């Protein structure tokens, strides 16, 4: 009994440490974490198989929350139930929590210097680029017929013109999907709900495609 208890603690600590390492090494958001998670979890430690990771990622990508955070929590849960999920979640959250702090301290101390401000103007440009990349990747997979293009345009216009709460928009989106598919079925139209993809597509593209 005592040894299994120790074994459990060891697993929890290892989960915490693995994800502790992944967070600070990834830039540009959750999707950047996926190759790193694959290397650490599948190849180095063989905790789960590649196929299982694919399934996990598809769930992690479609559940609410960041894909990196969700994937870590999933793997933690697989390895050690709820304590495992908590350990992995803490591991992925903690280091960046402190790094973000350090950067923000730096900014509040040196943010008034002209050259620091200039660098931040440039970084603002990079962030606009990163957001545009996310929009482009999402759009490439989400907008594949006239209905989806119309819904995206409608959402954008509502946001720009009315300042509608985005939470409400998201809830409407969930209902709208069900409704549209029902109506289309009733009218005997094509009810494809996902973009068709070639079988040989690489994994990264597949992962981007889940939500």
């Amino acid at each position, binding site marked *: 009994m005592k040894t299994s208890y120790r074994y459990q603690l060891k697993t929890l600590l290892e989960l915490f440490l693995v994800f502790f390492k992944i967070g600070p090494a990834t*830039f540009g*958001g959750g999707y950047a974490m996926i190759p790193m998670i694959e290397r650490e979890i599948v190849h180095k430690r063989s905790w789960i198989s590649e196929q299982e990771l694919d399934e996990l990622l598809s*769930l992690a990508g479609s559940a609410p929350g960041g894909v990196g955070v969700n994937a870590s929590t999933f793997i933690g849960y697989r390895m050690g139930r709820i304590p495992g999920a908590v350990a992995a979640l803490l591991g992925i959250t903690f280091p960046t929590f402190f790094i973000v702090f350090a950067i923000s301290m730096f900014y509040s101390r040196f943010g008034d210097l002209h050259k620091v401000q200039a660098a931040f103007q440039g970084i603002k440009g990079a962030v*606009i680029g990163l957001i545009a990349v996310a929009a482009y990747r999402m759009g490439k997979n989400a907008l594949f017929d006239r209905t989806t293009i119309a819904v995206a345009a409608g*959402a954008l216009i509502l946001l720009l013109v009315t300042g509608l709460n985005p939470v409400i928009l998201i809830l409407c*989106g969930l209902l709208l999907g069900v409704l*549209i598919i029902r109506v289309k079925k009733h009218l005997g139209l094509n009810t494809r709900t996902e973009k068709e993809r070639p079988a040989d597509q690489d994994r990264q593209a597949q992962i981007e495609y889940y939500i």
Partner: protein
Amino acid sequence: MILWQLFISFLKIGFVSFGGGYAVIPMIQHESQRYGWLTPEHFQQTVSLAGMSPGPIATNSATLIGYQAAGIGGAFAATAGIVLPSLVLVVLIASFFYKINSSPAVKSSFYGLRPIITGLIIYAALHFGFASGWSSLLQPSNWLVLLIGAAAFMAIVKYKTHPLLVIAGSAVLGMAFF
């Protein structure tokens, strides 16, 4: 009571943060304006800081907004709020709904949801690029920021440049030109 307000707001955002990362920026912005946590200009700076930091964007933004609004306690409250839904939902899905992705109801919901998320992310990008509305187009310094943005986009999409390199390169360009 601001701590509780931060926690609840981010908890709410966490539960509907489909698409993660940049899709939550408009949601955070909405709450932030509603409660007056940050000025719009300050909000942009904060999201820039979150975007250049390693790790998940949504969590980083929550930490920083919480910190700006109410110090260390606020940072903890906001971060806890945004990650708690992940924990709850992941545990629920992993134990009960492992096959949820292949259910037709979920598939048709996502059919409507995905374009909405695309709209949200485009909105986040526009809001960042044209913070002061149409008059942003009249400021030459803003053109330069947009130009850097366009270059960053091309570098990542076309040449698969590492995001860290793109961020560092943009910082250098900023120092050279502003």
